[in-house]
Structure formats: C-alpha cells, structure tokens
C-alpha cells in the first residue's frame, strides 16, 4: 500500500508540482525507490551517490526524524506520512 509523502516547495518541480505524492514500500528506502521510479528528477535531491540519505534533507516519519528510527531502513505502514523538509542552516 502506498504512503503519503509530503514534499517541500523546492522538491515539487521535480514531482510535477505536487505537494503530496503517494509511493509504496515497507521501509523508507523502498518508498524512496518507488518515488524515484515515478519521479527520476528527485534522485539526486534525496540520496547521495552512495545511496545514503542526503545530509541536507530532513525526513520525518509522522512526528519522528528517521535518523533515530533506522534511517532508510525505518519501517513504514500505509497509515504513515513521510514529510521531507530541507535542512535549515547557515553561519
């Protein structure tokens, strides 16, 4: 079953302008794989060349940061929402 993935403004052009998309998978990594299959332009904005989560991207599984849930291995179910947000930082 697909889960809802909320996209920040900066990623929407790579997903046809949608603010929320559906993607299927049992883990965050699998959901990302499906997301990239649907919207190949998202690949480099989500993942590094090594397939790791991009460090400038925050990914929340419902209310929790997936860095503390197993990162891309975090389990998801069809009632979950993934929210993607760019890291907000500077100096």
């Amino acid at each position, binding site marked *: 079953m697909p889960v809802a993935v909320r996209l*920040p*403004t*900066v990623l929407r052009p790579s997903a046809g302008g949608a603010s929320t998309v559906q993607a299927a998978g049992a883990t965050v990594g699998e959901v990302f794989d499906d997301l990239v299959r649907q919207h190949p332009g998202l690949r480099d904005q989500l993942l590094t060349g090594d397939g790791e989560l991009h460090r*400038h991207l*925050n990914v*929340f599984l419902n*209310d*929790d*940061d997936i860095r503390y849930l197993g990162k891309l291995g975090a389990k998801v179910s069809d009632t979950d929402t993934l*929210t993607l*947000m*760019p*890291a*907000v*930082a*500077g*100096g």
Partner: protein
Amino acid sequence: MLELPAAVVDEVVAACLAGYPLEVCGLLAGSVTADGSSALVASSTTTPNAAASARVYTVEPVALLRADRAADDAGLTLCGVWHSHTHTDAVPSPTDVAAAPDPGWWYLLVSLRDVEPKLRAWRIRDGVVEEDAVAVR
C-alpha cells in the same frame, strides 16, 4: 518586501540578545504574494540551534517540522528564517548562501556587532544574494 509586525521584530531581537554569544535562529510564518515578491509575516518561532555555536546555526529538525505544521494549521506558510550574527554585519555569509534551503524564502539577519542590533532581509536564489526592503508595521 518583507513586512514585519513590530512585535515580531521585538521578539526576534530579544531572542538574539538572550542567546548571545551563541547564534540564535528561528522561523517566520506568514503570507506570500502570488508573484513571490513580498511576504507579510504573521509570527515568528524561535527554534533551538542544534549546532549550539557562535559561528553557525542549524534549526533543530523537529522544531522545523512543528513550525511547518503550525503554520499550515493557521493557514500560513513558512516564508523565511532568521538568525543572529554575533560579531559581523547582517549580511549573508558564504555558509548562509551555500546552505540557503529555499529560493522562495526571506533570510532575515540580525547583527549584534554594534550596541544597536541591526536587521536586514535578503533573498538568496541559486547563489545570488539580493537585499530586500524590510517594512516594520
């Protein structure tokens, strides 16, 4: 143009002074005009600086999520981020430019270098930095 309620300006400056000598950061919620050229700020949220540094800041991720949801619930949008420069001008640093997360946002900087804090607003798009007017209402 970035329109700021005087109460928001007071809140931002007070937070920056309270957090000195560390950099302090927060998020702005409001309404953006359809052409993206102006924003009317309704509220500010001071967020933890996850970097806890006098030189850099990182908005604590869960605070970012909460601020985004609160803005959404209020019919607003996150439209900018503010942070203090403790010893330099209110001008984006190379780190600010490189890390700017959203070309549609305003970047409000507060300099604490002089006795009187100074605020300036900037747009940062694809590495290009432009100052924007601030109107305090």
